[in-house]
């Protein structure tokens, strides 16, 4: 059986950043397993710019951003296998993978970093009634067809869902000469970034209809029309508000789901809110030595934050391997998200294992204006930051100081909540 100190599942932005940081933390034997024929993950098909503003203070395209990390991996001499699908991860960290040349191989890993990214929710998950013709694509599949394969998937387009990929594809299809007729969003707010709504819809005069959904799809062979309707507060269509759009294509951008089939089969404890693993301050899952970062952990808006998170996962995995899995004792403090905050990553903190500063990321469940992000240590409010706008589409964070946590007497619970005042 092959053996590596660290095996990283996925060679996208998370896997690359984790690999580089683990290597720099003096771990030599690292292997990245990537199912595609090149490193870079989904960034390879994201040819628009806007990546790296936080990390590099410049606007890069997806492939450019990915290449900065790929180059680091090449320069550091980190091993990787392309065209390799991981089939299984066992609880004792034996990774089973397969490709054309090696066949099915098993690799014993000192530590595993889960960096598989996420997938798009398909139409089926929405149970949208109507026909099932050709011409219904998830936005990411359409993006691949246009940007990687070089084909136009449709000429007259309706988009359901205002996730970022859907917004980006509204612009991309328009630039390709297609007519994007409308973007319907079932929620009363968009799930995408504000800047994408401005740059991808407003700039091209594409209407965004909030609180609208698709209620019928016509076309026996290829899509011929789509009917949308307004929805009430219960998200059920309101009779009499139907509008029919003739079109040949329906793009779906209705949410991303962390791709955790492997994590589940390994027995990693999952969060029902994020659909990703439950992790501690070290980004370690419920299985010791198995770490998670990037979109497989929770869906991010910005790749910069993926890289940042992955860097920490890489460092912590290196630490784990170097300490030979030795437990660092210490009280475990629970993180609780409530009153508008939907979840936190991480879910627990062992103060003896945390860095001097710890970024806790979370999302809110609704749109808030002029509200406060508050942090409580037990029942005492220790942070109270005013935010002009909080929206589900934009990930938020608070930064905790180790010194403050360590000095707080009998700290059991840290609560993150949204407060009106």
């Amino acid at each position, binding site marked *: 059986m092959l053996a590596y100190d660290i095996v990283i599942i996925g060679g996208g932005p998370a896997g690359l950043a984790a690999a580089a940081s683990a290597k720099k933390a003096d771990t030599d034997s690292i292997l990245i397993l990537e*199912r595609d024929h090149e490193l870079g993950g989904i960034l390879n098909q994201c040819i628009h710019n806007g990546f790296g503003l936080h990390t590099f203070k410049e606007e890069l395209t997806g492939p450019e951003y990915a290449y900065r990390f790929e180059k680091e991996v090449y320069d550091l001499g980190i091993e990787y296998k392309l*065209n390799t*699908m991981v*089939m299984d991860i066992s609880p004792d960290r034996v990774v089973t993978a*397969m*490709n*054309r*040349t*090696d*066949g*099915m191989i*098993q690799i014993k890993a000192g530590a595993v970093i889960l960096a598989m990214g996420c*997938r*798009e929710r*398909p*139409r*089926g*998950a929405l*149970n949208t*009634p*109507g*026909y*099932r*013709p*050709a*011409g219904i*694509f*998830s936005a*990411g*599949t359409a993006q*691949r*067809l*246009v940007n*990687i*394969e*070089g*084909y*136009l*998937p*449709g*000429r007259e387009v309706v988009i359901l869902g205002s996730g970022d990929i859907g917004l980006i594809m509204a612009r991309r299809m328009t*630039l*390709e*000469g297609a007519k994007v007729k409308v973007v319907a969003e079932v929620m009363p707010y968009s799930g995408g970034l504000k800047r994408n709504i401005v740059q991808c819809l407003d700039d091209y005069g594409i209407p965004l209809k909030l609180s609208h959904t698709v*209620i*019928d*799809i*016509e076309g*026996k*062979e*290829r899509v011929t029309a789509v009917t949308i309707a307004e929805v009430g507060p219960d998200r059920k*269509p309101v009779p009499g508000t139907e509008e029919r759009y003739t079109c*040949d294509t329906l793009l779906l951008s209705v949410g991303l789901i962390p791709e955790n*089939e492997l994590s589940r089969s390994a027995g990693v404890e999952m969060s029902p809110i994020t659909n990703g693993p439950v992790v501690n301050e070290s980004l370690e899952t419920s299985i010791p030595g198995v770490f998670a970062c990037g979109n497989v952990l929770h869906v991010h808006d910005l790749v910069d934050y993926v890289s940042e998170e992955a860097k920490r996962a890489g460092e912590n995995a290196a630490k784990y391997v170097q300490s030979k899995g030795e437990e660092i004792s210490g009280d475990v403090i629970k993180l609780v998200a409530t009153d508008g905050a939907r979840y936190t990553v991480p879910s627990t903190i062992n103060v003896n294992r945390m860095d001097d500063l710890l970024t806790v990321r979370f999302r809110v469940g609704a749109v808030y204006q002029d509200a406060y992000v508050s942090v409580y240590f037990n029942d005492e409010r220790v942070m109270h930051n005013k935010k002009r706008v909080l929206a589900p589409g934009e990930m938020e964070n608070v930064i905790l100081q180790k010194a403050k946590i360590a000095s707080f007497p009998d700290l059991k619970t840290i609560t993150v909540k949204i407060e009106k005042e």
Partner: protein
Amino acid sequence: MTYDVIIIGAGVSGAASARELSKYKLNVCVLEKAEDVCSGTSKANSAIIHAGFDAPEGSLMAKLNVEGNQMMDRLAEDLDIPFKRNGSLVVCIHKEELGVLKDLYDRGVANGVEGLKILSREEALALEPNLSDNVEGALYAPTGGIVCPFILNIAMAENANTNGVDFRFNTEVEHLSRDDDGIWHIRTNNGEYTAKYVVNAAGVHADIFHNMVSSNKIHITPRRGDYCLLDKEMGGHVSHTIFPQPTKYGKGVLVSPTVHGNLIVGPTAIDIEDKEATATTQEGIDSLIEKASMNVKDLPVGRKVITSFAGLRAHEEHHEFIIKELPDAPHFIDCAGIESPGLTSCPAIGKMVADIICDLEKPEKKTDWNGKRKGIIDPNALTLEERNELIKKNPAYGNIVCRCESISEGEILDAIHRPLGARSLDGVKRRTRAGMGRCQAGFCSPRVMEIINRELGIPMEKITKSGGRSNIVLERSKAVKGDE
């Protein structure tokens, strides 16, 4: 060339008839208007092998159901069809209706169904703990089963083709007439065919062809059934096929594991006119969830659905199979009104059709007929060593194309290059399951298109989901056109 037999329709009835007829020295051709076999009723149903207690005693439906059920083990073995006798339960949730179970039991016994047993509430719950808390009793049928309807259909057609039966796809019959010499002239969109015998296995369209040649008219009503297919995470929610008590519209909304480990819920029963109207409706899907939950508890139908679809049953008003030579149209054999339990009955239907023709034509049996078919290898069923052996021989088996169902390029190549191979995304999907998983082809469809393009030389713009005008991409992107 004048064929001995032309079969209209490559669904399960047509394919089963073709396979039976391929045992004889007959020139047989199947005409199919779709681009592949298994494109109508046969592809969208409950995928159940019924025990046979539903149909009235003495009916043809009852006879062929029980016969077909008994033939299924051998057929599945010979043709490598995924099939499992998981047993079925008809659940009674109203004490005052327990008598209905007894009626079903008596009918089943009269029909020749073996092993039927009426279970008490406790026995039923012991067998199937996720039954509704309201369960009062159940009828248990151990011979009930589940099958892959696609492979059942495809395997019979492939085997018929291997044994000399021609298949013509994208060939829609437009007109039928019989000349003075008793030869049938079949006009299609692809020219005229002639044959001594015609088998009308056209599913929901069978009445059209019947009525073209007979003055004794029939009417087939497409009875739409909506279904939800749930994620494999839910596949173990029940282990038997769970039926409610039947009504005049059919066997009601069932909940069953599928042979591939998903959970299926359906169908509704809505009579419509349009013979191609397979659109689901919100009301239909909503009613499914409500009805299924009466018999099975904790169904998270809303959240775990990976796809919903609708199929059309070919409902004839007398609710009986019509399988016979028409008195006023010699050598025209109807195979009409094949609704549930049609899938179960299909091996017996094929046998009956072949027997009718053989009685008239007295053909010789072939000596070299081969009734066996090897299916596409399922590498997930192999040991590590066997799998590595396979990959060494053909590296394509080491390349996973469909991540959800773990389908390799090797399986897709086999699906494309075997007899009556796949030419579309749905064709690949039905043969290999690539695209049938929880992401519903989002990941694999561009990859499968590349393989079809490379292997069959079909330009990307001409590759379809399921034939006709179901193209996936329309033209080269501007960026690429600029380069070219």
